[in-house]
């Protein structure tokens, strides 16, 4: 290889990792399916065929229908939109908070750093899931609140990782040179620090998405997340559990979809980590 930059090396290593590539492929397919759901879903997610009721998989309804006669395949496809949206948006929120917090703490250092990181330590020790439930109870079950609440919980580890990286960079020559040239703090963050820590950020973000999706599924399962007639995979699993004795397919297919997605995200994230940091790949 001629071009031995960090990223081209990483992409090369990633492309050799079959599990990660499979994971990535599944993810791309899922995202495409989710975006195209209104066009490729055989029925609308709320279309009810009450005469049909719950029917097992057939040629009309590939994955069967639920007790209200709604096509399960269509509901899973539409559910993918919500579940993936929560996964990406909430991770985005966590990313913005965590990265800014970590860069500021790490770069400014000193007293500011110790106060900021002490706050992170304290927040780490609190039962956040309970606060999310509390917020959902107090302010109603709102999709945007869900994004914000989950994102506000998941930023802590990101802040720690970014801070560690920034401290490592802070005394390197290019940063000192930029300081000597009088670069402002903001452009220091944007132009010099951020591009150098994109690797760890990308890895941790990929591994945060499945955590966030689990959290959303967890809340929806308890009835505190997405509200009907909208459906996420969490609510589909919840509905499936309620009728699993007679209609087990209502639990099994959403469950398989959810699990495969989490597998894909974890494999891709692990692969990305190994590709960007070959030292860890043996552990």
């Amino acid at each position, binding site marked *: 290889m001629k071009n031995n930059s960090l990223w081209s090396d990483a992409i090369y290593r990633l492309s050799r990792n079959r599990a990660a590539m499979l994971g990535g492929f599944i993810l791309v397919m899922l995202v495409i399916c989710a975006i195209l759901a209104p066009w490729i879903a055989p029925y609308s997610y709320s279309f009810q065929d009450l005469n049909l009721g719950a029917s097992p998989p057939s040629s009309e309804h590939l994955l069967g229908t639920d007790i209200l006669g709604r096509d399960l395949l269509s509901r899973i496809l539409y559910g993918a939109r919500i579940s993936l949206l929560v996964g990406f948006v909430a991770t985005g929120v966590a990313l913005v908070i965590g990265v800014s917090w970590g860069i500021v703490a790490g770069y400014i250092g000193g007293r500011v750093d110790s106060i900021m990181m002490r706050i992170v330590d*304290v927040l*780490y*020790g*609190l*039962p956040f*899931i*309970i*606060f999310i*439930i*509390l*917020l*959902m*109870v*107090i*302010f109603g079950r709102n999709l945007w609140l869900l994004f914000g609440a989950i994102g506000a919980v998941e930023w802590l580890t990101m802040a720690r990782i970014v801070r560690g990286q920034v401290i490592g960079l802070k005394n390197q020559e290019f940063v000192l040179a930029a300081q000597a040239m009088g670069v402002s703090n903001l452009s220091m963050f944007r132009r010099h620090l951020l591009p150098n820590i994109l690797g760890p950020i990308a890895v941790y973000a990929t591994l945060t998405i*499945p955590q966030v999706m*689990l959290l959303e*599924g*967890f809340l929806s*399962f*308890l*009835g*505190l997340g997405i509200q009907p007639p909208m459906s996420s995979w*969490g609510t589909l*699993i*919840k509905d*499936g*559990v309620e009728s*699993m*004795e007679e209609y*087990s397919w209502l*639990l099994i297919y959403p*469950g398989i979809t*959810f*699990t495969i997605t*989490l*597998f894909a995200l*974890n494999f891709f994230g692990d692969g990305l980590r190994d590709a960007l940091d070959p030292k860890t790949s*043996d*552990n």
Partner: protein
Amino acid sequence: MIAIFFKRILLAIPVLFAVASITFFLIKIAPGGPFDADKAVSPQVLKNLNEAYNLDASNWEQYVDYMTGLIQGDLGPSFRFPGRSVSEMIATGLPVTFELAFYAILIALVMGVFLGVLAALKRNTFLDFIPMAIAMIGICVPSFLMGPLLVLIFGLNLELLPVSGWNQLPGDKILPSLTLGFAYAAYIARLSRGGMLEVLNQDFIRTARAKGLAERIIVIKHAMQGGLIPVVSFLGPAIAGLLAGSFVVETIFQIPGLGRFYVEAAFNRDYTMILGTTIFFSAMIVFFNLLSDLAALWMNPRSRDV
């Protein structure tokens, strides 16, 4: 080390105080009072209720009142279950949740450490890949899916184990404990594998081997002490996760524990119950985090003399 211990405890007190205050005022700004039930209550009854629960006092007075009670361990009355105090309800639910969490962590530790150490020792063989594949399943199948699947297989199809309840039928504790413990077994397996691999490459292990010690003694006495530090540090945060997991598991298996009380209180808008359990959970989690940090510190010889 004793200094660290006291420093951490001193830090924990203001944190819990802040949690209690924030939760209290969050609940005060929540729309709808606890008595806006489905049945309309006559104004006079409502007034009496508000008086009885001291809800007509100013927020500040109520806050001071609540905090004074809190210091004395009194979390106030439950709004939904008249005549029962929050402290009483916590006291009924806690032993059940503790027992469930205890079995779960036991399963997680035994399974996780065994599989993780095995995988590290037999690195890159069949005995490494299989446990790690199982661990991946444990991480990717959430408890709210694992529980129902176990019920479907062992409860409904094979009819081997009861599908719900706690302490009512023989064997009814098995499925809930497994459901809760499995995900942690997976994390612990990965952590102990990683930790063991790191330790097994170090010089003191080579020395032990050169001395001709039995492999069993090397692993158990020398390698595991250092290799399992990540597992011990993980246990504190895991307690927080176990509590959250108990919400789901207790709901699925209809177990009368603290987790189910909390979820019900959230649905019923039983504000005092939510407030009380939130503070109680926070205190427990802060305590267990402290405990696991200290244990990890104590296991690491480098930090022992500090």
